[in-house]
């Protein structure tokens, strides 16, 4: 486990592909422990593909992803699986297992990787549901609750094993502004309480500015990362019109050039 301020994740010379086409070239960035790092960019720029590479679901065209200095894609499957247990992932649609109740969704990783008794697991499940504001919903199926509640339940599952790296894929997608704000607050709480390193893939400006410590902007046209830094600093200091256009939704005078 990395120490505070040291890079937990390092991405070096990473090339990404989608359906045989290169979508992003030569990505380089690092994420420090306890940091909320935003991967932002327009639709189709390769954000979700990058997330899949980071969480071990898709091999990159070339380049390295290092977790505490260990190159993930050079390890054998057993080591990769062990490394993946450090991750919690909140998928864009929640990806709750639809044939399981919310309680069963959260309990499954606990049953698999801990030696807790059934009673203790139930207690942890209740705690995790309470943390995301869904106390008492353990017996509900995903089809019986709203989209926003599904997202929160999926977050409860993602943090079931107290991961030290949590990935969020478009957390605000499809949510009303209040639910999106509630999820942003949860992200901040997770950082403060668990000390987790958090990667958020999003293009929602409100989320980017409210939770992001650092951010990387991916550009579809140049297939590259065109900016990295604190989102507010980028907005204040960047001279790149593409960065300003993205961060102001093209509304700032002259940004639409």
């Amino acid at each position: 486990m990395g120490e505070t301020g040291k890079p937990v994740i390092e991405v070096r010379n990473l090339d990404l592909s989608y359906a045989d086409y290169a979508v992003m070239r030569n990505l380089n960035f690092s994420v420090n422990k306890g940091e909320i790092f935003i991967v932002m960019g327009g639709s189709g720029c390769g954000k979700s593909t990058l997330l899949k590479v980071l969480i071990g679901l898709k091999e990159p065209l070339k380049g390295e992803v290092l977790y505490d200095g260990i190159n993930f894609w050079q390890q054998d499957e057993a080591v990769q699986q062990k490394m993946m247990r450090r991750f919690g992932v909140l998928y864009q649609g929640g990806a709750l297992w639809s044939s399981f109740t919310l309680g069963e969704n959260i309990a499954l990783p606990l049953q698999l990787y801990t030696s807790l008794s059934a009673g203790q697991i139930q207690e942890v499940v209740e705690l995790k549901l309470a943390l995301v504001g869904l106390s008492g919903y353990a017996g509900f199926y995903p089809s019986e609750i709203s989209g926003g509640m599904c997202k929160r339940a999926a977050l409860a599952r993602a943090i079931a094993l107290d991961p030290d790296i949590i990935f969020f894929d478009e957390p605000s997608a499809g949510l009303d502004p209040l639910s999106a704000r509630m999820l942003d607050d949860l992200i901040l709480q997770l950082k403060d309480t668990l000390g987790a390193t958090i990667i958020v893939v999003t293009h929602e400006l409100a989320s980017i500015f409210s939770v992001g410590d650092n951010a990387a902007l991916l550009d579809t046209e140049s297939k590259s990362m065109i900016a990295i830094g604190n989102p507010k600093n980028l907005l204040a200091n960047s001279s790149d019109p593409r960065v300003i256009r993205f961060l102001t939704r093209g509304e700032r005078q002259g940004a639409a050039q």
Partner: protein
Amino acid sequence: MPAKLSFNYPQTGTLRVKLSGDWQIYASIPSENEVVAELASHQDTAQIIFDTSEVGSWDSGLVSFLFRLVRDCEHKNIQVSHQGLPQGAEKLLTLALKVHTRAMPEKSARNPFLERVADKALELYASTLSVLNFLGEITVAFGRFISGKAYFRRDDFIGIVQKCGANALWLVSLISILVGIILAFIGAIQLQLFGAQIFIADIVGIAMVRVMGAVMAAIIMAGRTGASFAAELGLMQVNEEIDAFKTLGISPVEFLVMPRVLALVIMMPLLTLYADFMGIAGGFLISASVLGLNPVEYWHHTQSAVRLSNLWIGLIHGFVFGIIIAVCGCLRGLKCERSAEGIGVATTSAVVSAITSIVVATAILTFICQVLGV
């Protein structure tokens, strides 16, 4: 009023396009090719202006006409003035022209014949590898199951057993009885010529027990359970539920596929046995009632004709078909593309590949039995 175009030249090099009538998308509107033809007859045209004073109502039919015309003129370096256009249409046209066409990866032209053959061969090689890889993963999962290390939910397994066993009994009963009846009638047509109708019992008994019971049960299960496996896993793939298993270090093959294969491998021989019995019962009923055979004699003939080896061959068929149906259904489901169409394709493909494989496996097993003399 129908939409019309007319042309005049207020000055050299300037074409005035006069639009009149109603330019609406559901009515017939002139093509921009009329303007292009006019431009071809006046090669010195450098600018197009519009007169829309006699245009009645308009909608996106007018805008799409203008859009195509402007794009055409861009290639010919002819300037198109937006002045004179209805205000709303001018705004929509400006908006449409503002969007740059994104450079998409070029779609390659049709490859030469040999290259296409090579591509198909490589695709076949890759899909064979993928099937072998999948079979390998299932074998590893079963290895872990035998050594007690496999992780799956017992409740899920029992649910699958019920779905592909007890819940399928009515359909298997109906089809098997009908197949028994059909076999009895077909046998009767020829055997009546020799006065040997009693051998209908042999035909029905041996055919059902040796192969037909297993094949009919398998075809029903391929359409019912194989398709259901593909759709279930396909939807899980679309909803990223499979990804969620992978990131938690849970093998989807062990957790989802193995219980399904195990359930069908257990239930298919049992369903085969049941289908055999129902088929013989169908033949028996029709022979005793319609064909006028002695029921006791029919039963004795069936007993003497159907040997234990026939029963074993039928059960082996059922066992093999169980593996085929479960593997085809689960493989297609896990390889499903992430779209609604993908689930349809996966389901169809699961049924088609299972039924094709069942027929091929039947031919191979029949050949092996012939060679072994059983």
